[in-house]
């Protein structure tokens, strides 16, 4: 029998522990927040570089 969905996600993302933090001099931020910020930067760069689909013009 397949495990319930929440069990699968619990295995992928174990949240039963304190959040992991990056700490470097004054900089202190949770890994989750760092990941979100990096994702936003990646999406921003992709939004500028990836060509927008154009509608094909009929002759």
């Amino acid at each position, binding site marked *: 029998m397949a495990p319930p969905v929440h069990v699968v996600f619990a295995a992928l993302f174990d949240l039963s522990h304190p959040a992991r933090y990056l700490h470097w001099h004054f900089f202190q931020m949770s890994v989750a927040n760092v990941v979100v910020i990096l*994702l*936003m930067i990646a999406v*921003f760069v992709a*939004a*500028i570089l*990836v060509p*927008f689909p*154009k509608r094909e013009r009929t002759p």
Partner: protein
Amino acid sequence: MWTTWVRERAVSSLPPEKLLPDRQPSYVSSWIYVFGVATTAALVVVVASGLILGLGGPTWWHTTSLGRFLNGIHLWGVELFFFAMVVHLWGKFFMGAWRGGRGRTWATGAISFLVAIGAAFTGYLSQQNFDSQWIASEGKDGLNSVGIGAFFNVANFGQMYTFHVILLPLAVTALVVWHVLLVRRHGVVPPYPAKVAAAAEPATPSEEATQ
């Protein structure tokens, strides 16, 4: 009648072809222009799921599978709302989107961002769990430290819940509607013009020959 005055003012400041345009300038065909409407779409999901959560109440969203599902939709809607809004903000900042008489468009966007942070904060306080208690105690210290702690009691669930489900959503929605109407009225900001220095450079002999 005053209704005539209102109608004439509304139509003259925002005629139908500007309110619901069927064409946009060619420079709008870029992915960076989709994040404004992505933010608005996420806001619709957040408000709709929040309305249902408000009807169900804390016990319902903590103990039933449907309540927890909608609680998740509400949370991830907010995550996407802020994600898209930040990318939208970066894009508009580097476009200089306040140019050409668009100062109020920029200001309403910036203020709606700030008010949305308050809405998200009171949302964390409305979770009714240990996380919200921790955030309330930390937030109370933070607000006291900047001298505005006397105006809000972030440890008061009733007060924060009212802020979260009535006052701040109304403020964010009103600001976003105003922001979108200003975008319609003034149009999407055009790109910066090509550098004057580059345009002033002497053309190459072959180019001169063709001019």
